[in-house]
């Protein structure tokens, strides 16, 4: 029992941390930094625990929670995401006097959900973990509750989210019944024998739709731009990476592990969805004049690239999953970085994120502009940044898989070229245009700077020396 407790320790620490945050807020009201400090402490402790576990796999609660390299990897990734978000958010929220305590607590709860996603071995736990990660998202989307856009985004996100949750859930239940077990590996075994019945096909369709919504794949992506644009910028940063990472873990567990026997069914559909997703995301992003919304569409495109890895994985290439996991990390850092940059630009309420607002920033705030350039180049996929290696990794997997996956890879690189246009256009405004009048004032502050720096370090490090991450990922996959 005691070692079970040890196994669960990270999860428990996060949840306790969340409650601690709330208490700290009651003890010392209207002190914005206390909750953040507590939250960061909790995160630190969790990280320490995860590292100390060192990816040695151990199971708890009758095997419904299996700690291991994968949990460690996702946990640490989630911790960095939440940490960066917590570093960049306070200034922004304070300026619009929204509290940070709830944010910190809710983020921690979501992190707990993500950890469970990583650790879950059966459908039921998986689903509950997913909800624990997603539902806080609805709250966060509407976090700026006095702001019509924020609440509008929240309503859209919530309604569509719960609609898709119901669909996903229905699929899960039917699958659970058809397989006669909730355990993912059990399902895989059960499906391996006997061919797909109509009911199973429908269940698969329900699950595909539900999870496609969570990762924001076309044509289930509509919520993304509105929810992202409406949310407070730092929170958009979190929403664009956190839930996405979790959703892809869900995809890996459901499709690559449980539904592997049905790969011949879902791969073609995934290929079509992936192609549509990256193309639409990029094409529409081309036409956006609001950087925040543009990044929302670009995140759709990145979903498409990630799906390439899933397809490859479905075709039996372990490199596919590895690629997806690596990509999530790279994407987390570079995209958070980009939003951190936008956050910095919105120092005072009412500051917009129009492309024209960025004009000439390179002159006024060279450091900030250079950081932004790094993130944008990484999103474009220019070496030697994380984004480049991530793309390479999934494409390599696709090439290995061969067949439709290779065609998908070609579509992906062509899309990358399209994407280059709108990312580079931002750089054009940053460096090649004359400063806009009145010049926007950039929010400074140690925490924000730390957040930006963290993201930047991650973005560059993963590009220059990807080896440690690759090895971690490969270990995470080793059964």
């Amino acid at each position, binding site marked *: 029992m005691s070692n079970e407790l040890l196994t669960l320790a990270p999860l428990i620490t996060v949840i306790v941390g969340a409650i601690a945050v709330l208490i700290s807020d009651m003890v010392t009201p209207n002190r914005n930094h206390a909750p953040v400090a507590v939250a960061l402490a909790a995160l630190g402790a969790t990280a320490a625990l995860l590292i100390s576990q060192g990816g040695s796999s151990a199971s708890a609660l009758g095997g419904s929670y299996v700690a291991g390299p994968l949990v460690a990897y996702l946990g640490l990734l989630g911790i960095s995401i939440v940490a960066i978000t917590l570093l960049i958010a306070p200034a922004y929220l304070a300026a619009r006097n929204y509290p940070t305590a709830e944010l910190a607590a809710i983020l921690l709860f979501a992190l707990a959900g993500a950890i469970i996603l990583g650790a879950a071995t059966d459908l039921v736990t998986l689903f509950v973990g997913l909800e624990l990660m997603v539902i806080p998202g609805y709250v966060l989307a509407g976090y700026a509750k006095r702001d019509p856009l924020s609440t509008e985004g929240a*309503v*859209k996100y919530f*309604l*569509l989210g719960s*609609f*898709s949750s119901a*669909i996903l859930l229905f699929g899960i239940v039917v699958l659970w019944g058809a397989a006669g077990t909730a355990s993912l590996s059990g399902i895989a075994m059960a499906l391996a024998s006997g*061919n*797909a*019945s*109509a009911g*199973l*096909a*429908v269940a*698969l*369709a*329900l699950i*595909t*739709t539900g999870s*496609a*919504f969570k990762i924001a794949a076309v*044509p*289930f992506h*509509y*919520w993304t*731009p*509105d929810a992202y644009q409406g949310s407070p910028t730092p929170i958009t940063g979190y929403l664009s990476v956190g839930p996405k990472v979790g959703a892809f873990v869900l995809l890996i567990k459901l499709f690559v592990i449980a539904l592997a026997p049905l790969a*011949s*069914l*879902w791969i*073609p*559909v995934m290929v079509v969805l992936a192609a549509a997703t990256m193309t*639409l995301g*990029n*094409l*529409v*992003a*081309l*036409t956006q004049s609001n950087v925040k919304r543009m990044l929302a569409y670009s995140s759709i495109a990145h979903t498409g690239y990630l799906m390439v890895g899933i397809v490859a994985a479905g075709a039996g290439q372990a490199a596919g999953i590895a690629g997806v996991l690596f990509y999530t990390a790279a994407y987390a850092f570079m995209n958070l970085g980009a939003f951190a940059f936008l956050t910095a630009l919105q120092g005072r309420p009412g500051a917009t994120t129009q492309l024209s607002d960025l004009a000439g920033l390179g002159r006024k705030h060279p450091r900030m502009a250079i950081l932004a350039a790094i993130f944008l180049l990484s999103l474009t996929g220019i070496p030697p940044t994380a984004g480049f290696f991530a793309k390479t990794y999934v494409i390599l997997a696709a090439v290995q898989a061969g067949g439709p996956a290779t065609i998908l890879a070609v579509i992906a690189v062509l899309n990358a070229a*399209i994407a280059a246009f709108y990312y580079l256009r931002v750089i054009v405004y940053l460096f090649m245009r004359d400063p806009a009048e009145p010049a926007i004032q950039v929010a400074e502050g140690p925490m924000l700077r730390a957040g930006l720096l963290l993201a930047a370090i991650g973005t560059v490090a993963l590009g220059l020396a990807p080896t440690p991450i690759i090895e971690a990922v490969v270990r995470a996959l080793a059964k």
Partner: protein
Amino acid sequence: MITAETAVAIGTLPGYAPLLLLLPLIGFAFTAAVGRRLGKMAHLVPLGAIVATWALAMSLAIPALAGGLGEAGASMPLFTWIASGDLSFGLGLHVDALTGALLLVVTTVGALVHLYSVGYMSHDDSYWRFFAYLNLFMFSMLLLVLADNLLVVFAAWELVGLSSYLLIGFWYTKTAPGLAAKKAFITNRVGDVGFALGLMALVVVFGSLDIHTVLAGVEAGVLVGPAATVIALLIFCGAVGKSAQFPLHVWLPDAMEGPTPVSALIHAATMVNAGVYLVARMSPLFAASHDAMLIVAAIGIFTAIFAASIAFTQTDIKRVLAFSTLSQLGYMFAALGVGAWIPAIFHLITHGFFKGLLFLGSGSVIHAVDGEQEMTKMGGLWRKIPITYATMLIGTVAIAGLPPLAGFWSKDEILGEAFKFGFTWVWLVGMVVAGMTAFYMFRLMGLTFWGKSRVHDESHVHESPWTMTVPLIILAVPSIAIGAALGFPFANGILANGLEPIFHPASVLLAHEHEAWTLFGIDGLLMLASVTVASIGTVIGVRLFRDDNSASLSSVTKRLQPLYDGSRNRWYFDDLNDLVFVRFGRKVANALWWFDRRVVDGTVNGVATLTSSGGRGLRQIQTGRVQNYALSIAFGLVAIAAAYLVLAG
């Protein structure tokens, strides 16, 4: 470089031979570097360099012509220029009788023109630049005649082209010289394309461009049939360009925009002979193909009469001389074409001298009437500038082919051999041209020196300084004597004996057998005929232009109006060129430019536009209404389910 393939042993040149190239090169480099600071002293170094070169050249040329260097001449390899794989093209010097003949003309006229320029160019601000260019030209020309590798010949070929470009365009602040220079260079390039392709073909056939290797190969009969014809004609293209034969003759008259010494040196005495030299040098190659020979002869003789007919009506003194040069070069090619190699070279030499003389004389005239070139504004100058008049008269008699002056000997040999080798048509046309030459040359003399003066202000007219007259006098000597000196006794003078071994292989290939020269036989008759024709032309010319009787002239021209206009407008050939190449070429280029922007680049931009418009279209489906979004989710679900059911079967 010199390989065992060559039959006869080849001697080695004395060690100072490279100085022939280095001296002018140093002169050029030095003057180009510091010349502008030397002011009126700028000519000293270049002049000195050329005089020294002349001395050296004579010390090689005379023995070479006298057979002192042995039949195959002497060589000196210097260094490998371009090497690739098993191919390598080296720079080496070679001197034999043929080289000697050209050295004689090139260095002598060259040195005299340098001297002449000291006076002629004395008023020019970029005095120094002129001498720098002249030395550069001398270097290039000497390289051309001395090189033992065709690729080096080609290089020199281009370099003389460059010098000619620079010298024609010497007065660059005026528009015409710039245009003329450009025209000259480009027209030459047209010929050079053929030359270059010919060289490549030779490389493919012989694996080398070393002249002796190639010729040895040809003599060994490696190259026969159409291949020989094609290669020979490709090489000939180069000659046509450089020696301004029809249809690439258009640049030479315009080249008269350059200072007169340049016209004398480059466009009369030396560079334009390069084509003749090349064909002569490659004589076995041409001899290997009768068709090629025929075409060479045809083009030569056509150019001769074509140019002469134009010279009839030109009123610019230098242009008359220019067309006469074309005509005389035509003679030489006709000679080469019929296989009369030695007469061709003979005429090259004599023509070099008397045409140089004539040009320098015309320069002196122009100098005298400060810059005027229109003969209609001259007349009656013989009293004012007697030396110029006397020397030019000698030149005219020489070119007219009246014995015993230089022109007579060489021209007569050409016509005679043409007839004897059975090219009667060449002979006939040649006779006519001989007459025409005499006529238009005396027309020139008449309009310039005789009759009443038409100069607007006589007081200015003055004889040129000694630096200009001395060269005239010096050149007059060979114009009188060199024919006899080299050509007598008939058919085995010094030159004939010197050159015979060089052209022996070619003659063998053509199966020419030389029967003894007979004064009281066919040769005597032919000589008589040509002299008669020349005399007739002279008499008509003198009678018509002795003193201005423009009345009778205009009546003549009235009767022949169309012919007159045609000749005056150079038979409209430049207009044709302008139409075909300049206008049409520009149209093509513009069409391609349009294609590049609209089609090639248009496609690129089109793709971009298409992409962004696609984005704008897709943008519309984001309506902002939750239920629309949900609906697409629902239909998406149905579609996916259908897909699965189908796939599952």
